[in-house]
């Protein structure tokens, strides 16, 4: 009887340990996000925070990779005009969704943006990456050390940031976002969806000039 009781006790303790362990590991994957957030056919729930007025009638969903030089081109040549004419005026807002496929440093860079988001510095970190991009893929400009250096330059809490980045806390979030890109037929970066208030959406592939965005956005307003 005592032997049976001992085995039962060990079994109960084992079950409790397994439950506690699984709960603590699932805590690593818990995000403070609205899982129902969608724009057109795209689930942007695990994408970036919304840049601009969340109630703007049009949303620009950008799929991008931090190592993509065409994304760099778009960021520097087209985005400033979109910011000025549409986002800052409340006519549109923008959501960035990771499509990290180019190199081994791409997913890590995307994860780092969400570690910055934990400290409400997503867009500052995002901008910092595109301002610091070097022309060579996986050359080391976006390795863990450099990603931490970018965070340091933005005065982030380094203990929190390093813990987040080293534990790959947002690995699955980036994978989910990349899958969203594939599911929505994105075949390269940058890729855009312009989603209107009546859920009509228009796809734009590549780092196209401002005139193309202007034409589509004006037709939706």
């Amino acid at each position: 009887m005592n032997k049976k009781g001992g085995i039962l006790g060990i079994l109960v303790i084992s079950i409790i340990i397994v439950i506690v362990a699984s709960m603590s590991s699932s805590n690593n994957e818990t995000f403070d996000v609205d899982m129902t957030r969608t724009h057109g056919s795209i689930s942007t729930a695990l994408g970036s925070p919304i840049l601009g007025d969340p109630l703007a009638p049009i949303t620009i969903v950008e799929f991008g990779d931090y190592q993509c030089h065409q994304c760099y081109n778009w960021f520097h040549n087209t985005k400033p005009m979109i910011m000025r004419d549409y986002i800052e005026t409340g006519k549109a807002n923008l959501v960035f969704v990771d499509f990290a496929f180019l190199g081994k440093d791409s997913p890590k860079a995307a994860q780092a943006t969400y570690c910055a988001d934990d400290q409400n510095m997503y867009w500052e970190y995002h901008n910092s990456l595109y301002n610091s991009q070097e022309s060579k893929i996986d050359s080391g400009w976006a390795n863990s050390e450099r990603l931490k250096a970018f965070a340091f330059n933005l005065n982030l809490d380094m203990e929190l940031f390093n813990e987040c980045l080293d534990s790959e806390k947002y690995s699955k979030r980036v994978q989910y976002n990349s899958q969203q890109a594939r599911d929505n037929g994105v075949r390269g970066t940058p890729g855009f969806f312009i989603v209107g208030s009546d859920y009509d959406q228009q796809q734009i592939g590549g780092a196209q000039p401002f005139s193309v965005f202007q034409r589509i956005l004006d037709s939706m307003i």
Partner: protein
Amino acid sequence: MIEIFKVIFSNFKFLALSVIIFSSMMVLLLLVSEFIFLEPYFVTHIPSGSELGFILIIILSALSALVIPMNLFRITNLKNSKQKMSGSIFGSIVGSAAGACSCGPIGFAVISTFGSVGATATAFLTNYEIPIRVVAIAILAITYFTTIKSLKTECKVHF
């Protein structure tokens, strides 16, 4: 040299071939390198900082359009070796491949199909796009000058 051009390109077949090679190669490379977009509207665009890439595409297309017909002329009319022809084709292909693999649909397709090997190849072709194009142009330029030299000698012998 002008005499050689007159001999080759006075033949409509070689002139047409040259125009086709130049226009198709230029349009294809400009499309792949995202200087031209067809959807949702036709638009041309040279982002700042990409001017050198644009100029190299034009030079590459022009050299291919000169060298390939010249070598075909040597093969068909003068029945000479195909060695220089392979140099011109090689230069054109190398130069074209350089810009093809990037973050666009071709790069994505290569990475999706070949996994990490495709990613490594894509990264190499993207990282060294400009040097590879310069090397391709150098190959075509060398082929061009050696072809001109050969044609000068061979034309004297044959005509």
